[in-house]
């Protein structure tokens, strides 16, 4: 089928619910409304109120009850309406979802997939445009994935629901309906922890993910530069091998993400490149990201998020150094 990312995730959720009767969706407005982005549209009709649960408006409650469901053998897929609201559930996810397995030496598990829209560029109100991937990745214990295509979104979701780990599934709002591509009707898996080679080249490596993947690809295409473009897809655990192999191959590394620069995923990627490939580098690593302050109001976001010019200049700088 031709599907945008919303269709693809919807199709993955439906397949997962058919495959496993312990899968339960819960969240705010996910039933009749189908979620504010319509990702769960139609699932209430297909599976009923028992399995598609409209919850009270309380993010910590949603995450915490989902953890309990998972401990008791269900496989919940809670939806957090926006990543900015999800911070109210941060304690539950960081303190509990991440560590039930390790603190009980695998005698208890938290199989669940927490879905939330992330990142900006769509002129929404405050707290609707955050990119929180680094926060959820930092401590360990939570798997963090962020697809940039409908195909990857479906495959990663199917895989996430077949695992017995807590997965934070980040869905870039801007990419929900940006484009359609051919997506198989039947379930298929994309491996967690494996990056995707968007394009192969030899002049530089661009390590990116989420909203920046189409932007970076477009800049590279326009410039006609031979770039290894790597879409991480999984933030934690990081596909270090893909990053380091590419860095060694091209000798020049650019990291691009929408989350703010300081202490971000780019720092982690750059550190690993430095540890494993510094003698193969021809130039210092460059990071392109949003600025190091909280996400601005929609009127200012175009000055905040990396744009084509910023990426293009960084590529020029990298190739000329």
């Amino acid at each position, binding site marked *: 089928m031709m599907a945008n990312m919303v269709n693809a995730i919807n199709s993955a959720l439906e397949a997962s619910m058919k495959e496993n009767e312990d899968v*339960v969706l819960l969240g705010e407005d996910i039933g009749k409304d189908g979620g504010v982005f319509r990702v769960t549209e139609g699932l209430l009709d297909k599976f009923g109120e*028992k399995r598609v649960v409209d*919850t*009270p408006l*309380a993010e*910590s*409650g949603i*995450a*915490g*009850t*989902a*953890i*309990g*469901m*998972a*401990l*008791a*053998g*269900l496989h*919940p897929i809670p939806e957090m309406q926006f990543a900015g609201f999800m911070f109210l559930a941060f*304690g*539950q996810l960081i*303190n*509990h979802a991440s560590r039930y*397995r*390790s*603190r*009980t*030496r*695998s*005698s*208890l*598990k938290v199989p669940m997939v927490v879905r939330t829209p992330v990142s900006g560029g769509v002129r929404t109100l405050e707290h609707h445009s955050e990119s929180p991937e680094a926060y959820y990745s930092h401590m*360990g*214990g939570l*798997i963090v994935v962020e697809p940039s295509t409908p195909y990857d979104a479906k495959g990663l979701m199917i895989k996430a629901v077949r*695992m*017995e*780990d807590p997965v934070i599934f980040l869905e870039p709002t801007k990419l929900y309906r940006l484009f359609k591509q051919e997506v198989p009707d039947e379930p298929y898996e994309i491996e967690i*922890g494996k990056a995707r080679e968007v394009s192969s080249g030899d002049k530089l490596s661009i390590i990116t993910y989420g909203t920046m993947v189409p932007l970076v690809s477009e800049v590279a295409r326009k410039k006609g530069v031979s770039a290894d473009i790597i879409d991480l897809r999984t933030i934690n*655990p*990081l596909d*270090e*091998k893909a990053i380091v192999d590419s860095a060694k191959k091209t000798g020049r590394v650019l990291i691009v993400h929408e989350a703010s620069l300081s202490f971000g995923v780019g720092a982690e990627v750059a550190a690993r490149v430095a540890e494993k490939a510094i003698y193969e580098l021809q130039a210092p690593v460059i990071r392109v990201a949003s600025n190091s302050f909280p996400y601005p109001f929609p009127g200012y976001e175009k000055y905040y998020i990396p744009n084509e010019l910023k990426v293009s200049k960084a590529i020029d700088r990298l190739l000329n150094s």
Partner: protein
Amino acid sequence: MLSKIYSTEIDYLQILDENGELDKALAPKGIDSNTLIEMYKGMSLARAFDAKVLSLQRQGRAVTYAPLLGEEATQIGSAMAMGKNDFFVPAFRQHAVYIARGTPLHLLFLYWKGYEEGDVIPKGVGGTPIIVPVSTQLPHAAGIAFAQKYKGTGNSVVTYVGDGGTSEGDFYEALNFAGVWKIPLIVIIENNGWAISIPRSKQTAAKTLAQKAVEAGINAIQVDGNDVVGVYKATKDAIENSAQGPTVIECLTYRMGLHTTADDPTKYRSDADLEEWKKKDPLLRLKTYLVKNNLWDDGKEKEMAEEQAGRIDKAVEEAERFVPDPKSMFEHVYSFMPDVLKQELDESEAAGFWQG
């Protein structure tokens, strides 16, 4: 127009008073002499366990510990009311619940020695491990109760929170979800009067903690938390009614000891308070009743104490035989070992970083 649209009342229940008088009319059906003796033995074992961990901690053989002294009736009364397949979701002071529900003692000692392996609670016990951040276990309990309803098991979930915990957002959120979902959840508020140094009076202006259930549209009752029979009955009733929905039970008890071994209560509370509560000691009143009714004597007390001390010592020995394997820290983070973690493990092993 001005009209009254809602009002409510909270009942208070006491069956065994502080003088050891049992209100026979209120005593639950099926509670016989043997049950009362079991309750006494359960509370005594918990108190002996408590004293043991406290002593081990003072010797440097256990980590920071939260003693339960004085709260035995709340914990044993509720734990004994649970059915075989019911679940319990404690906070961090409910050692008596773990013991009464059949958690092997050496695991508890292992936990308080600071090892995750102590959290490997056998499946049949039906309990989740200790939760330290206050009240965050309540949504988990609600989720577990949701799963019981979803799967139609007919089992209930009993969870515990302190008086301080009732100020947390997760407390209200869990109650609210439970009310909407009408799930088989029983929330025991173990109101021991103190949240470290903050007295109950500074925790909330609400007259009772039980009435906080009213905001979520669920049943509530307040019980003398040092009355093991009263707590037993309230819990039993709540479990029997759990197919209709959740219940909150506020148990009025008193933390006769420390918040934790890192705490010094003389900084914030008077001895006079403690002396008053010693008269209401949960073990004392049940023993008075048992002795008065020729169900207990010094000989039985001595026999029980020796048997329990033996069990405890054996469990401590078993826990102290445990040898930690640092590799286990890496092996249970995910369902698989990511390459990046494997590198850290290999480095530590190869370089011999794990010493001592």
